[in-house]
């Protein structure tokens, strides 16, 4: 009875803490401006199924795709086993699914074991890629101590969880063969049977190992659950809504700002009555709250894989711009704004902004708007939109565009071309 009560307390605390932190992230995301992504639900479901569930954008890098798929499939499918473990923990049973599932149960446990070893191996390779092979994609100015540690913590935790799971099965299997206590014969153990010979033969030691691993595994999962909202690993959840709310328009199409349309129409036609488009904000984005909730959701979805940065022409030629940094800065700043809100209330303003305190102008002006980053992102994150929104603030609110661009603007305004040619000469090419 005591283990059950203890288990229920731990479980309830973990679930409570997790929902509280997810709620905070949701609140932070909704600090962004509104944007309508409710159109075309059929295509949205399809996009989510293809890109998040089917991981179709991962295949561009085949090795990473296969290894990631092992971990992804392992995560989803082994969760069935976690359900059994949770039920056992709450009710105080042992392998509660074994009776109702019969022969299928053996197949499932065997399958989980194979997935577990694949997850474990994939995590080892991923650790090696980051720490021994030191792939260029995992370095860069934004990959400071915390992002690097975060990635390693995730991989090490997963290795530990899988090891505990397999060792638990090995001990259980051995106890089953000894006909010990409540360890009924259930499950098949294609992987853990290799661990069994390494374990002691005494039933009490085995029972201790089995119980220890059982508790280590499930409390580890509950701990990890609560680590995820603080980590880049949150992509396992947000990848789904983030792809559902994808931009469905051609990548070349940039949003036309409705607030500007009203002003332009009023200029061209003094009798024009603007449509109500909500309270007038500033043009473009100076801070994270000027961005849309979708931009902010993307910031929390980013798992810092660096595919965007590795294909960015500016980054590849040594410029300061890194699309991954744009997303990480946006996430760090909105988290800071959210924390300020919790600590100091809603009227508090710190003296910081996303522009200048996090993202420099040099980074923003280096972008060629080529869409390589948005194409490369496996979960359809759009760093380009944030870059453009920040350029809009610099140009339209501050008039601080680089001098050469101001000359270009002047030319377009005065002669209808970005260069200083007279419009009267537009047909001179004919000869």
């Amino acid at each position, binding site marked *: 009875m005591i283990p059950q009560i203890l288990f229920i307390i731990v479980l309830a605390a973990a679930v409570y803490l997790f929902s509280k932190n997810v709620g905070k992230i949701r609140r932070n995301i909704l600090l962004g401006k509104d944007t309508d992504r409710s159109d075309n639900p059929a295509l949205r479901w399809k996009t989510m199924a293809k890109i998040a569930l089917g991981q179709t954008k991962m295949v561009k890098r085949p090795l990473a795709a296969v290894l990631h798929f092992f971990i992804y499939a392992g995560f989803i499918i082994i969760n069935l086993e976690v359900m059994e473990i949770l039920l056992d923990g709450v009710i105080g049973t042992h392998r509660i699914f074994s009776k109702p599932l019969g022969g299928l149960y053996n197949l499932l446990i065997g399958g989980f074991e194979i997935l577990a070893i694949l997850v474990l191996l994939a995590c080892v390779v991923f650790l090696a890629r980051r720490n021994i092979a030191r792939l260029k994609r995992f370095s860069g100015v934004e990959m400071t101590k915390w992002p690097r540690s975060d990635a390693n913590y995730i991989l090490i935790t997963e290795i530990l969880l899988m090891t505990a799971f397999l060792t638990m099965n090995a001990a259980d299997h051995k106890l089953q063969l000894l006909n010990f206590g409540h360890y009924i014969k259930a499950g098949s153990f294609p992987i853990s049977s290799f661990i069994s010979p390494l374990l002691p033969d005494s039933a009490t030691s085995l029972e201790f190992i089995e119980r220890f691993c059982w508790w280590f595994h499930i409390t580890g999962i509950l701990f990890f659950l609560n680590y995820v909202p603080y980590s880049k690993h949150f992509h396992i959840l947000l990848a789904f809504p983030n792809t559902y709310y994808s931009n469905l328009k051609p990548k070349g199409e940039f949003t036309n700002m409705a607030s*500007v349309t009203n002003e332009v129409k009023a200029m061209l036609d003094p009798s024009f009555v603007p449509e109500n488009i909500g309270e007038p904000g500033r043009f473009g984005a100076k801070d994270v709250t000027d961005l849309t909730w979708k931009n902010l959701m993307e910031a929390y979805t980013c798992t810092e894989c660096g595919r965007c940065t590795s294909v960015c*022409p500016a980054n590849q030629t040594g*410029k300061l711009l890194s699309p991954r940094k744009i997303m990480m800065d946006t996430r760090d700043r909105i988290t800071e704004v959210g924390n300020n809100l919790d600590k100091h209330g809603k009227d508090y303003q710190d003296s910081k902004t996303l522009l200048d305190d996090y993202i420099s102008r040099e980074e923003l002006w280096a972008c060629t708007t080529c869409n390589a980053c948005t194409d490369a992102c496996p979960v359809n994150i759009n760093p380009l939109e944030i870059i453009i929104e920040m350029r809009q*603030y610099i*140009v339209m609110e501050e008039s601080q565009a680089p001098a050469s661009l101001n000359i270009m603007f002047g030319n377009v305004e005065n002669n209808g071309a970005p260069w200083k040619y007279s419009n009267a000469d537009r047909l001179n090419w004919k000869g």
Partner: protein
Amino acid sequence: MEHPKSEIKVPTMAEMAAEGKQPDILFWVGCAGSFDERAQKITRDICKILNHTGISFAVLGTEESCTGDPAKRAGNEFLFQMQAMANIQVLDAYQIKKIVTGCPHCFNTLKNEYPGLGGNYEVIHHSELIQQLIDDGKLKAEGGESFKGKRITYHDPCYLGRGNNVYEAPRKALEILDADLVEMKRCKSNGLCCGAGGGQMFKEPEKGKKEINVERMSDVLEAKATVVAAACPFCMTMLSDGVKLADKEQEIQVLDIAEITVRANGL
């Protein structure tokens, strides 16, 4: 090799309207196509293709103005929308239904960003027009220069490729040639930008290790191409500069899809 300039027939919309005529398609020349010397030649070649295939077309001439694309990408939404609204007034006054552009940036802006501001037209890029003409059997690769033995690679402009998923049309114009076609390491959706987009054409690049067009040139050299096919006047500038910087002007030519088509047909 080029025919005397006077041979191309290019009516303006104003002239057409005065005669009470309406062309089937408007050729949107674009600023680069109008003023940049290298791009002007491509503009004339697009007209030659239109003349050769007997398409009824016209240009706006002095009534054309920048689409606003460079202003929008550089963050000046206000200037972009001013340009767009003014252009839409002109296009609508002439009751334009279909537009072909010589530039992927004009193409993208007119096609995708004008509808939201009230300008609805069927917009195609000149590579798509060339593809349609080839598919319809109206355009072949005969009677002109042979590309036999040439090794041609195609550089995807961002606003045609990733921006609008037009990857096959320009390649079609190359496939009908008797030439050796080769893809660069970074091509199609993985294509590397020439470095001119997003307003970069009009400013100095930020501090870095090298220029983007020099980086792109490494792909061209690796592919051992003797001809780089382009489909955008800005890419044309950047790639031509890249070839110059690599000191390969004798070995590598940069030609627009339209120029290649004109040469192959001896127009």
